[in-house]
């Protein structure tokens, strides 16, 4: 069973207030279409590093919750991040991986992990405080509120398939304006 990614993100958006949201590639385009705002951190530059940027933000702003919306292809490029985050153990970091078994932003070719890698099990083995897997939208909607209240680092595997196709606006993603707005919004956060 899987969820449509955009539907799952709509559910998640109901729980986001002044959280910092680090989102990568296709998930980022879905996310900003659902919940735009300057606290979206979408300029992660090199593929795989989203969760590392999120760790830096979590350390720099321990007073704020940081949600990392990672992709499975991205996480596979930086699996060591699970160990690093587990060792640092930021209480305010929630790390999602949206797993669809493909490098979706690069033509939807399958990943080497599809159908046989359990990302939550990897995060458990690395030492995350708690790990969850969701493949059903109703269950996710019922449980995500309490999961987001758990002390981090929390890892959440989201078994998804693409929903409605988002607009791939890389010019916007990598623009200086997006980064400047994020920095200003972060500075103004109490």
């Amino acid at each position, binding site marked *: 069973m899987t969820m449509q990614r955009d539907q799952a993100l709509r559910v998640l958006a109901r729980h986001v207030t002044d959280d910092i949201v680090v989102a990568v590639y296709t998930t980022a385009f879905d996310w900003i279409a659902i919940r735009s705002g300057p606290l979206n951190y979408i300029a992660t530059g090199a593929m795989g590093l989203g969760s590392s*940027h999120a760790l830096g933000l979590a350390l720099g702003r321990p007073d704020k919750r940081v949600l990392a919306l990672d992709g499975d292809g991205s996480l596979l490029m930086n699996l060591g991040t699970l160990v690093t985050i587990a060792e640092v153990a930021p209480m305010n970091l929630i790390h999602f991986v949206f797993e669809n078994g493909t490098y979706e932003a690069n033509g939807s070719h399958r990943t080497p992990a599809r159908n046989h890698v359990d990302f939550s099990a990897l995060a458990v083995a690395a030492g995350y405080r708690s790990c969850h897997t969701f493949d059903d939208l109703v269950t996710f909607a019922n449980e995500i509120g309490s999961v987001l209240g758990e002390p981090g680092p929390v890892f959440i595997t989201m078994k998804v398939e693409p929903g409605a196709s988002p607009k791939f606006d890389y010019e916007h993603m*990598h623009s200086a304006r997006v980064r400047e707005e994020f920095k200003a919004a972060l500075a103004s956060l109490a």
Partner: protein
Amino acid sequence: MQEQAGTTRRSAAGVLHGRKIIDAIKASGIEFIPCLPDIHTSEGLLRPLWREPGLRMIRVCKEDEGVGICAGLSYCDKRALLLMQYTGLLDSINAVRAVGVEYGLPICMMVGLLNKEPGVAPAQSKSYGVRIVGPILDAMGVAHHVIETDADVGVIRPAIDDAYGHGHPVVLFVGGNALP
């Protein structure tokens, strides 16, 4: 860009103390140090850093993670210095390209030059890797400096201040074996 070969030759007979580097790092406002070990800096710099109050050390599994961590911290107005070996820098070139150069973020890196001969400028090293790392950074437009002896430590603070003040990456090569 401005590899200081002249400085390297001038002070070839000198020594490099990790204590002086640590003092310069702290004077630069650095609070976080993502790191991987490098044999040149292992005993004289990295181990003392772990004992140093006022610094948050972060063990990373791979160097480009550190680039991302430094980037996230920079948005929070927190200064960080990524400590690694030059091989790790070469492995992180794409991250430095995207996050440091193209986004204009102050990614500050202190990089051990494994196998660099004492008193020999990196460009004249017998080590292929040591020879090419400076020219690669030149091609990227990334500022870099060589710290070979205590006389070179003074470059650290202005280099870090400039990176944070103007939004660009900088590499501080440690060319000598740091003594405790």
